[in-house]
């Protein structure tokens, strides 16, 4: 997994509350192999019309935001289906962090496993960053994971909390499966005690 340490980029606002993972990637694309480019299907049905033309006023299609690597989300961003394809699509599109007041639980977990940082900030902070991004789409936001800070275009510093294990995983680009396998002895010992009767 590619590590996440810090990031400086402008940010694209997708701040409606309760955006679900069906919006982030519609179900008809879920049978595609993991190694495909899922970025093309990121917000597919909001980004493109039925004929495949870009919907010009959708934020992801704004020239200034096409290269953005940060997404500003609303409350409960990426709720619903557990489809990890939502993170693959977000990552494939080019984003590496989402700043939102809250996240769908499974999406936040999936993000960390793919090197994408979910940042939880109070709604007022996300609103301020959103207003700044709309006023000046090129305005850059800086995220510093070791310091757990987001710095807005006006220099305001917001501190965020993150699970220490998630932080470490992101900073190191941890291969979690390989890490767990270092605990093979513990698992085997547990299995011996847990036994067949717990079947």
């Amino acid at each position, binding site marked *: 997994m590619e590590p996440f340490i810090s990031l400086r980029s402008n940010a694209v606002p997708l701040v409606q509350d309760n955006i679900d993972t069906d*919006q982030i990637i519609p179900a*008809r694309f879920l049978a595609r*192999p993991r190694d495909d480019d899922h970025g093309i299907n990121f917000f597919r049905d909001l980004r493109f019309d039925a004929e495949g033309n870009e919907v010009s006023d959708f934020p992801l299609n704004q020239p200034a935001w096409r290269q953005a690597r940060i997404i500003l989300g609303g409350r409960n961003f990426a709720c619903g289906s557990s489809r990890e394809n939502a993170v693959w699509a977000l990552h494939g599109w080019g984003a590496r962090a989402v700043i939102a007041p809250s996240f769908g639980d*499974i999406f936040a977990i999936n993000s960390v496993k793919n090197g994408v940082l979910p940042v939880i900030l109070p709604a007022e902070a996300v609103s301020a960053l959103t207003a700044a991004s709309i006023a000046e789409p090129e305005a850059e936001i800086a995220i510093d994971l070791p310091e757990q800070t987001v710095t807005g275009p006006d220099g305001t510093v917001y501190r965020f909390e993150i699970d220490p294990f998630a932080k*470490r995983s992101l900073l190191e680009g941890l291969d979690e499966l390989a890490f767990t396998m270092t605990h093979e002895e513990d698992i085997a010992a547990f299995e011996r005690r847990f036994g067949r009767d717990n079947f």
Partner: protein
Amino acid sequence: MQERQENYTCAALAKARFCRNDPFMIQHATPEPLTMFDKIWMRHRVLEREDGQVLLYVDRHFIHDGTAPAFEMLRKRGVAPRAPERIFATPDHYVPTDTREADEIANAEYRGMVESLERNTAEHGIRHFGLTDGGQGIVHVIGPEAGLSQPGMLLVCGDSHTSTHGALGALAFGIGMTEVAHVLATQCLWQRRPRTMRITVEGTLGFGVTAKDVILHIIATIGTAGATGYVIEYAGSAIRGLSMEGRLTLCNMSIEAGARAGMVAPDEKTFAYLADRPYAPKGTEWDAALARWRALPSDPGAQFDLEVMIDAASIAPMVTWGNSPQDAVPADGTIPDPMTTEDPGRRQAMEDCFAYMGLQAGMPVAELRMDRVFIGSCTNGRIEDLRAAAGIAQGGKVAPGVTAWVVPGSAQVKRQAEAEGLDAIFKSAGFEWREAGCSMCLGTNGEIGKPGQRIASTSNRNFRGRQGAGVRTHLMSPEMAAAAALAGHVVDVRHVKGAR
């Protein structure tokens, strides 16, 4: 919500840390009252890190035909599943519901998903309930049906509706694909302890009110993120009064309130439901299991981080109008008015939703005219759901211009329904009687509606485009959906013949 308690650091858990790696000592060494969640959590704890991450052991891992990427992740590492005997597979997402022949699936990608599950399970010796196997079905229907899902277990599946299995008194939750690969390889999963919420529904449910209405009412009350970060335990006389299948419906939609999992304490109904199912313990093992299961319910005085109280009598048959499961109103209600909402963001979102859904403020829900009806899914595709819908459909006719489907949740449900003559009732009323699968709940198999179509659906999500681009989904109970099929529009099931 009447009361809020924040007791995130559970003293019992802190004490139990000294008994690390001994799931059996923990319960004896801990005098504090524990929740059912605590008991299951502790029992499955392989180890706990200083930073609070816990490695949990998984009793049962359910996999479906969307699991190919996880097997691919393992293959790249040269790793095989650690405990294939704990993994159970069935194709549901990509299977057609008009045939049982995999090679008749026209779409090569969908066919590939079904075939790769068969191949991967054969390669690793995993029990596969295949398309022509009598045990196939939606993974969350067949787990309980086969007796695979049992009280006290920790169950996971790469699907958010895994919360369903919590109805048996298990801790069950959905995981992502990378986590699926991790569980395949290690039979374990890293988790941080979630918070606990108890939702108590006291009293008697009114005429025509089902488990589906209870959960839609709960989600409308606490919001679609109301339980994010929590595991819900549903309690109270109205919950105890639900059948096992009703409890499965209830727990199924816990994720629609944002919850990690939902659960109901096992009781005599649970045990009666499980007895004699193919994978349930037998003989002396059954007796031993019963003794364990009876100790599972939350102890008197156990502390939850959040308590929610709901009066059963206040719950009506519900219908959703919007694009979030929280957008639900009683069947005799009206579409809300965005202008009464103070939050400008919420108002704008409602107006966008009205445009998509073709709604006007204040219109009676009963004026929603349906093009299609879908009865099925892991929420409402079990035998009791079909009996209830057939009770409404009996002797009636699907309204002109309406296409109505009944998709049993499993091959077993289909056989049972046919043995009871339910298929004949549906067919003579003009419903299509189909094969088991997820079907139109999410349309991964291509079974979707056309843009602009309005669908009465017994499934779990009314998200924009969920049942096809431009499709307008209204969630409701099987009774309500059947009644809508006959009338051609939403009707309050309390005024319909055959309701119960």
